[in-house]
């Protein structure tokens, strides 16, 4: 379980979270996005439709990634959060920091 990165026709790097985003694999996601930034990618979508759980370290990693993407003039969006995951973003007020779409399709259309 980890992350699957693909690039869509519109040039958006779509990163799918498979299973969980937690203290044990957050560095892998940070590294994946950093390498993509180094290769001039600027549009990112992190999709959670296949994710079961996220811990606070995972949320922290998203915060860090979002900052780096913004600093490079890029854009990061999130999609596919189930009710429980979305409630964690609302609780921590991170729903105000991220652009969150219900589906990948909606998120891609918003870039």
């Amino acid at each position, binding site marked *: 379980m980890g992350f699957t990165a693909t690039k869509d026709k519109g040039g958006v790097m779509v990163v799918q979270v498979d299973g969980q985003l937690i203290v044990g694999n957050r560095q892998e996601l940070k590294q994946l996005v950093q390498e993509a930034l180094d290769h001039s990618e600027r549009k990112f979508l992190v999709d959670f439709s296949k994710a079961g759980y996220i811990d*606070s370290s995972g949320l922290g990693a998203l915060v860090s990634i979002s900052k780096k993407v913004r600093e490079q003039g890029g854009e990061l969006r999130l999609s596919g959060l189930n009710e429980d995951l979305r409630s964690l973003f609302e609780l921590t007020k991170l729903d105000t920091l991220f652009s969150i779409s219900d589906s990948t399709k909606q998120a891609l259309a918003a870039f």
Partner: protein
Amino acid sequence: MTQPIRLVVRRTSDVSLPVEVSTRIPSVLDAVHESVEILARHAFAGLTPTPECERLRNKLKTLLCESLANAIVYGHHEDPTKFVGVRIEVDTTMVRVHVTDTGDGFDPAAIRPPLDPADLDRETGRGLLMIHKLADSVSFNPQGNSICMTLRRP
């Protein structure tokens, strides 16, 4: 994982008695994920895999991740020679999780999560807030080095 995890599972034919799963986990962050998966698998071994049960399992995993990471980082300063104690009890009405480290403990009331707009870019400090949201009840021992989290079963 640096060394094998030894799990003790207590299960009886009397369904009114809780299933109890306990272990000690080395204070290494890389050990958290595997430990969480193993603990959740054994704690929920007899449960029918309904969507509600899956939701409860994910809540349990998140609570374990949070409390183990806190114990390892703040309680033991990632010293791999120190172990975090975990005990999970599952009965017909609830799941109770105890996580204990050997550190000095902390005052949970002193923790302020980064909720102000100016602080949202902070990477850490949200763990305890999430624990309180996910668990139906949370308590600490007086020293502040042992947490007990309870989830009601659907």
